[in-house]
Each structure stands twice: as structure tokens, then as C-alpha cells.
């Protein structure tokens, strides 16, 4: 890593550490949202950038995990040590079921994931007795594990950075592993992968389930930040926005989803401060991104199956072979 990058990283770390004090609660809250939705976008990118599958149901895992943790803490008085893992677990269970969608491909896969996302949203809205319906579930306490009690959003700010950092490190291991390479092979040529001995269906299923687990992790992070969950969080627009964040930032990278999350959320926050039509602006951002910036900030989006842009490989390719 070049010295310049290291300095930038250090500056970033210092900035992040003191953001609540330097910039105030509004920005600290925004940064937390960027991190949380960045993880959600990361989960979508595991499928989109690395496996070539475009899933539009990840809000379902996100919300189901958040709901589970919320219900356990609020209605059943369970402690964080139980409620948080349970949230992730339920989200993973859902992705085990929803993962069967990988039996379809192409546009059918997209449509099926949309439909699956709606099932969960529909349950959240209509099963009012359990989920609270449109009123949602509120008054979720801050997390507390043994002697460690979070007492303010500022404290949670730092916890979030640590947790997201750990998550990103884990994700990095995953995409650099043989399994990660396998996914990119599937993205590039399913037929060749089959001919090379890979059970493509099984790998896609595993990728989908892993991606659902990451989204569930983001959902648990979310509920302790927002401390309120409603069906809107499970809705289709959330899934689409996650995909958009990936594309804005650059598919197939680790930083891309977070950059996309930052760009999107900052833009929306600015816009909704000045006008009510932020839905229109969101829509226009979609249109503009697809038509004029399909490259994203870090990567390229050329076809349905997209490619990673690893700066290291580019540099090496530039050298004489």
C-alpha cells in the first residue's frame, strides 16, 4: 500500500473517531446509517459483483433480523446476548428458504426475488398481531451485554465502527478465498465452471445464503441504531436502493458499496431538507446512474454480469510482462 494511501487511511481514522465531537449528532447519525446500509449493500454485492446474480429481496433479511431482535427485546424482555444472535439466525433461516430461488436464472431470478421480498413485507404489514403492523415495533433498548452497556447513540457510534470493521475483514477473507474465486468464475462463465467440476447450483445457493446472513447482520446493527422497525424497512424500495448503492460505488469491490451508500444517503439527506420530492430525486438518481454513470465510482458495470476492478491487477497489467 502506498504511503499516500496510508496517510489517507490515518486521516480517515482520526476523522471517524472524532466525528461526533467535530461534526455533531446529525453527522454522526448519518455516518452510522452509511455504515449500516453499506453492509447491506455489501451483501447485495456478494451476489451481484461476485456471482453475477441480481437479487432484489435483501431488505427482507435485513428487516426480519431487525424485527426478530426487536420483538425478543421489547415483547419478551430478552437480553441482547440472546436477541442479537437470534436476529441473525432467523435472517439466515429465511435465506436458506429464499435461496431456493437460485434454481431460476436471468430475469426470472430478478422477478422471483422481487416477489419474495414482497412476501415478507406483506407478512410484516398484515400479521399485525405479531409484527405490530404499520405501527411497527419501537422502544427497542440500546444493546447491553453483561457489564457492557451502551447508553447513548454516541457510544453506539464507536461500537458500530468496530463491528462493521470486523465484518468487512471477514468479508475480505471471504472474497479472497477459493470460494470467492469460485463465485467470480461462475459470474464469468457458468458453463466452463460446470465443465471444470463445480456444482454451480450448490455454490450459488451457498453464496445466496451467505449474502442473506450478511444482510441479517446489518439488520441487527440497524435495530440498535434506529430502535424502531416498521414494514417500510422490508419494502421493495430498500432492496432497490441497496443495489443502487452498489452500482454507484462500484461493483465487485469492498469500498464501493460504502461509497455508494455514502453518496446516496448524503444526497438524500440534503435533498429532503429542501424539498418533499425526495422520491423523485431518488428516481432521477436511478435514471442518471444507469444512463450516465454505469461505471460507478470505483468499478465498471457493462453487462448483466459485471467485473471487479482490482487496482492491483491493473497496475500489474500495465507493467511489461
Amino acid at each position: 500500500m502506498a504511503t499516500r494511501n496510508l496517510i489517507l487511511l490515518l486521516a480517515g481514522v482520526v476523522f471517524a473517531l472524532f466525528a461526533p465531537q467535530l461534526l455533531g449528532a446529525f453527522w454522526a447519525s448519518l455516518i452510522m446509517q452509511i455504515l449500516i446500509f453499506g453492509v447491506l449493500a455489501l451483501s447485495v454485492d456478494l451476489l451481484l459483483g461476485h456471482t453475477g446474480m441480481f437479487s432484489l429481496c435483501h431488505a427482507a433479511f435485513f428487516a426480519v433480523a431487525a424485527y426478530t431482535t426487536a420483538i425478543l427485546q421489547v415483547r419478551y424482555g430478552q437480553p441482547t446476548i440472546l436477541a442479537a444472535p437470534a436476529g441473525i439466525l432467523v435472517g439466515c433461516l429465511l435465506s436458506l428458504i429464499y435461496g431456493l430461488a437460485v434454481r431460476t436464472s436471468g430475469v426470472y431470478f430478478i422477478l422471483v426475488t422481487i416477489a419474495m421480498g414482497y412476501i415478507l413485507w406483506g407478512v410484516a404489514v398484515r400479521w399485525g398481531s405479531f409484527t405490530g403492523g404499520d405501527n411497527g415495533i419501537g422502544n427497542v433498548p440500546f444493546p447491553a451485554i453483561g457489564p457492557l452497556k451502551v447508553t447513548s447513540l454516541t457510544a453506539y457510534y464507536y461500537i458500530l465502527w468496530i463491528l462493521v470493521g470486523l465484518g468487512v475483514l471477514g468479508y475480505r477473507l471471504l472474497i479472497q478465498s477459493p470460494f470467492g474465486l469460485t463465485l467470480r468464475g461462475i459470474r464469468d462463465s457458468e458453463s466452463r465452471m460446470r465443465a471444470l467440476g463445480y456444482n454451480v447450483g450448490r455454490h450459488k445457493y451457498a453464496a445466496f445464503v451467505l449474502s442473506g446472513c450478511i444482510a441479517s447482520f446489518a439488520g441487527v446493527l440497524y435495530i440498535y441504531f434506529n430502535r424502531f422497525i416498521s414494514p417500510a424497512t422490508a419494502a421493495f424500495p430498500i432492496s432497490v436502493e441497496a443495489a443502487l448503492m452498489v452500482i454507484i460505488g462500484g461493483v465487485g469491490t469492498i469500498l464501493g458499496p460504502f461509497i455508494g451508500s455514502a453518496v446516496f444517503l448524503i444526497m438524500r439527506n440534503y435533498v429532503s431538507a429542501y424539498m418533499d420530492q425526495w422520491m423523485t430525486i431518488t428516481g432521477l438518481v436511478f435514471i442518471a446512474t444507469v444512463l450516465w454513470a454505469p461505471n460507478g465510482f470505483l468499478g465498471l458495470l457493462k453487462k448483466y454480469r459485471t467485473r471487479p476492478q482490482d487496482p492491483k491487477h491493473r497496475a500489474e497489467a500495465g507493467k511489461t510482462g
Partner: protein
Amino acid sequence: MNWAIQTLNGISMGALLFLLSSGFTLTFGLARVVNMAHGALYLLGGYLGLSMVLATKNFWLALLAGGFGIVILYYFLDRFLIRRTGENHLSQVLLTVGIAFVIADIALLIWGGDARRLPAPAFTQGPIQLAAGLYYPRYRFLLILFGVIVGVFLWIIYKKTQIGALVRAGVDDREMVSAMGININRLFALVFALAAFLAGLSGVAGGAFLTLYPGAEWEILVLALVVVIVGGLGSLGGAMVGSLVVGLIDAYGRWLLPEFSYFVIFGPMAVLLLFRPTGLFGRKN
């Protein structure tokens, strides 16, 4: 007795869904375009019709306003936006979702957030007696008839005319039809126009009994998606069967298991896809 009513509810919903999804499925079958704004077009068509009927007190003008208004809008959307995504389904989905957001938000600005019911002509109001002791809202019954008439009309064109044969051939093998010297773009334009017209028209028709409100565009789109998933993208017959099936399941689901009604619709769809990943009548491409 309730069974009969719910069955009729399902069939009338199916009729509405057919009007909406037939265009969606043919647009995909022929031009490989996935238009996620189809629901928004439905909603906007309904609102346009609402304004027309409030201004002129004429429901028929409203139907035409909804239909043609959307045809015009879709022409511009396609020419300047959708066409530029080629066959990249990822881009199409994102782009058309963006378009849907914009349309819906502008509609919210113009027509407000309350549920609006389109006033239907007097002769469609009130009950109609279908059998001894069986009364059903006349409007919904007429909608069923209308759906059947449109269905038959489309089927005849699709199966018995030369244009229909060209569309069928195009769905099957677009390059071949192009190579035969047929102006494939004109064929596209025709099918797009028809799809847009039906979307707007169904908005007016639906607005009279389902009402129009923010969010309706996604609720109806999702049902239409299930129709085309189950029926198979590109299949007109599939859209007919799918619409009926989804309409009936939706009606029974709401009645018997209101808390899980979405699950009731999507469950069978999911099971179907496990065994036939391209739907009942779809083709692998």
C-alpha cells in the same frame, strides 16, 4: 354463497390483471424489456382518467384519456430512456424503477395522497342478479365481460392474423423476423403502444373499484409479476391462465387467510418455479 362471491371477485381481479399483464408479458417476449414502471403507468392512467371524468363527467372519455395518455408518455419514456438500456435487464430494472418513483411522486403532488375512486357510469352501479339469491356488483361483473372480450380480441389477433403471426414469430426468434426484412421496430412500436394503452386503461378500470392511492402501483405490479412468472414471460396464453389463477388465489387468500395473503399467492408460485423455472408456458432463452 360466499364461495361464489369470492370466486367472482377472483375472476374480476383476474380480468383486471390480464389487462395489465398481457402487455407486460408481450413486451418482454418480443423486445426483452422488463418494465418495472408498468404499475406506475397503471396508476397514472387511472389518475388521468379521474381528471377527465371529473372534468367531462364522461367515463368513456376517461378510458380513452387513460389509455392514450399512457401511450404518449410511454413513447417518450421508451425513446429517450428505456431504449438506451438495450437488453441489460439489470439496467432496465433500475431505470424503470427510477421512472416509477418519479411518476408516483409527481402523481402524489398532483392528485394527493388520499384514496380516490373513479366515478363509474350509472348503469354500472348497483347489484346484478346472477342466480337465485346471488347478487354481485354490476361493475365487477361487467369488468369480467370486458376482460373476456379483450382477451378474445387479443387472442384472435395473436393467433389468426398476420400481424399476430409476426409477433409470435418475433417472440420466438427475433433475429429471424428481422432477417426476413420485416421492420421489427414497427412491430415493437405496435406492441409497446398496445401494452401502454392497456396499462392506462386498466388503471381507469381498476380505479373505479379498487381506488387509486400511493402504493397501488407496486401492489398491482407485484400481482402482475406473479402472473407473468407463473404464466411464463412472453406467453399470451400464460398471461390468461396466470391472471385467472392469481386473481382467484388473491381473492381466496384475502378471505380465508388475510394475514398471510401474500404468502398464499407467492407460495404456489415458488413451488411452481422449483419444478418449472420458466413458468407454465415460458421458454428458456
